[in-house]
């Protein structure tokens, strides 16, 4: 195993294509948890996330000899992970379009500014769980855009490549995801802070 040593992508690819075992270890160590993290955020299930890690690496190894570095190796890996996540989601939930009522909520209805309220600070951990659950209720394309860009901090260009869409489409999905999550999180804070206020009276 290569431990902490950094291996650049070109070297890693060449060594993977030569099926060197230390390259495998390095590749797995570098990316397995990240894929697991993305899959868990999108699917909300540990067993599914594990399945995605396995399926992704198997697909990569099946095609590694034919891979031509037009894209980055890591981007290609995440594209494959993304495709496996989509396949799994579509097997279970064929409908992926944004329902009309979701479109309606893009106009902000919740206008409490919980970011400036000291009482909201104590709720932050619980609110994160609310975000995780709200994320799972988003339509899949929006969920994926939000996870890749706002949680995993990929650039817009990388997000677009991974999802095989234009940068413009990626930005639109991200924008809608943010507004929908904001609405749900604001409703949560509004309810919690209002009920806390009533209890104090």
């Amino acid at each position, binding site marked *: 195993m290569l431990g902490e040593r950094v291996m650049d992508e070109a070297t890693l690819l060449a060594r993977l294509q030569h099926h060197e075992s230390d390259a*495998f270890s390095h590749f797995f160590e570098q990316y397995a948890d990240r894929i697991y993290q993305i899959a868990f955020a999108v699917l909300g299930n540990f067993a599914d996330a594990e399945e995605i890690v396995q399926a992704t690496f198997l697909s990569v190894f099946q095609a590694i000899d034919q891979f031509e570095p037009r894209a980055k190796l890591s981007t290609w890996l995440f594209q494959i992970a993304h495709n496996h996540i989509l396949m799994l989601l579509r097997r279970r939930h064929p409908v992926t379009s944004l329902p009309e009522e979701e479109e309606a909520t893009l106009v902000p209805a919740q206008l*409490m500014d919980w970011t400036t309220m000291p009482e909201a600070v104590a709720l932050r951990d619980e609110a994160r769980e609310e975000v995780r659950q709200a994320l799972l209720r988003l339509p899949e394309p929006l969920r994926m855009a939000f996870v890749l860009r706002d949680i995993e901090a990929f650039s817009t260009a990388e997000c677009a490549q991974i999802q095989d869409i234009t940068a413009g489409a990626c930005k639109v999905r991200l924008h809608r995801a943010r*507004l929908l999550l904001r609405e749900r999180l604001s409703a949560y804070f509004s309810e919690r802070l209002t009920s806390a206020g009533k209890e104090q009276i």
Partner: protein
Amino acid sequence: MTCEELLSALSRYIDHELEEELVAEAQAHLAQCHNCTRVLNTTQGTIELSRGLQRVKIPAESRTQLFMSLQRFFQQSSPSASEDRSQGAASEGD
């Protein structure tokens, strides 16, 4: 800039991707519109909370199993392993 225009430009404003003159228009609008300021603050707050979501890692036992089964597949898929297998099959046939 209207509230509707601000809302549609909100993500680009947050990501610093809005054209300079539109940034000035957005800031002027935000300075006099409390509701849009609340939407901006809570959208940024939502992103910030999401970035703080706890990272998950593959549990150790599953990770070892995954590593071993993938490593086996990786080694078996190497051209030299296929040659070895075909040579083995050929010599078995002899």
